[in-house]
């Protein structure tokens, strides 16, 4: 008889404990956020921080300047080496892995390619890279028309390929 009463009480107590362990966290979470569903489900500070960080990914914040005084040309190899200064206004570091641009020079189409394996862009700092292309005439002091191209950048193992001028 005592056993039976004890079993019933124990059974009821354990069932109540199970219900409390499920209900309490939900009630406490809502109570901590003033019963606001959105705030309880997700803390918006983190989401806002991510949005701010990723919204900086705009290539209008990057400035590319050809250093015309430093262009090198090899008559024997018909090769020009064009230095480019890049200023990154972005808020995070990233790497440029590839640059390929189709250019037009004196009626000829020339492919300009990045010489370096990678160029690291540090926030709000200048970086330098060189484009190489085959020119049958010395391009220094003459107009080179840039056409379409592609830039490949890498950040945290994510590779982004951007086709420009299309």
């Amino acid at each position, binding site marked *: 008889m005592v056993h039976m009463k004890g079993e019933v009480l124990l059974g009821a107590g354990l069932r109540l404990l199970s219900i409390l362990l499920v209900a309490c966290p939900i009630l406490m*979470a809502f109570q901590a956020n003033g019963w606001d569903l959105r705030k*309880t489900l997700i803390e918006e500070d983190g989401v806002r*921080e991510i949005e701010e960080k990723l919204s900086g990914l705009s290539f209008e914040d990057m400035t590319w300047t050809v250093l015309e005084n430093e262009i090198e040309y090899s008559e024997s190899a018909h090769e020009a080496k064009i230095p480019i200064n890049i200023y990154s206004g972005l808020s*995070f570091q990233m790497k440029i892995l590839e640059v390929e641009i189709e250019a037009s020079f004196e009626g000829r189409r020339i492919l300009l390619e990045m010489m370096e394996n990678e160029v690291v862009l540090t926030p709000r700092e200048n970086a330098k890279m060189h484009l190489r292309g085959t020119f049958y005439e010395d391009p220094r002091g003459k107009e080179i028309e840039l056409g379409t191209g592609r830039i490949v950048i890498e950040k945290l193992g994510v590779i982004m390929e951007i086709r420009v001028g299309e």
Partner: protein
Amino acid sequence: MRKKLTVNWFGVGFGVLMLILPFAGYWWRAEVGSGAASLSMSPFNFDVNVVGIQIHSTLVRYILLFAKISFLIAGVFAILGSLFADRWWAGRLIRFGVMKPLWSVVTLIVVLVAGTFFVNMVLPSIVSGMVRDGPTQINLRVPLLCGTSESNITAGNVTVRTTISVGFLTPFLLAIAAAVLGILTRIYQKRFAKKETAKSKKE
């Protein structure tokens, strides 16, 4: 006459594992790129990290805290019930949490399978519908439960490529061990319940 100590050793082992599991770490992890984003989870911990920033949820935090408490209580009950396996209250205490690790393992696998299916089959069409800026091609391939794959998304003149790696971590093996021990504990405890019934009938 000295009373013979009746111990459900499976239950003792199970109880100890239940006390360790909440602190053993994540059971499964998914990573995009090399730290671009990651998702780590277990019934006691959940971490979402995007470009180094953690996303928190109050509701998830409290639910996981109480899941931890629930496992700890179940562990203590299992040890108590197993050390005095022939008492009338032992079976009840043991049954409180003996199936918890099994259900946790099964639930995790079901959630992962459903989530992978959703990401691979449903999410691309949702995102395609939302992006109106030029042609969009989404090739999302999240491995099922374990593995590495490449995914890419093309929108307009931008293509994003990355690897997605997913897999179970060592604490998941502990969870499986706890689930197996839980089942064995339950089966073995029935012997003591039968003995108890026989004893009460004699009296």
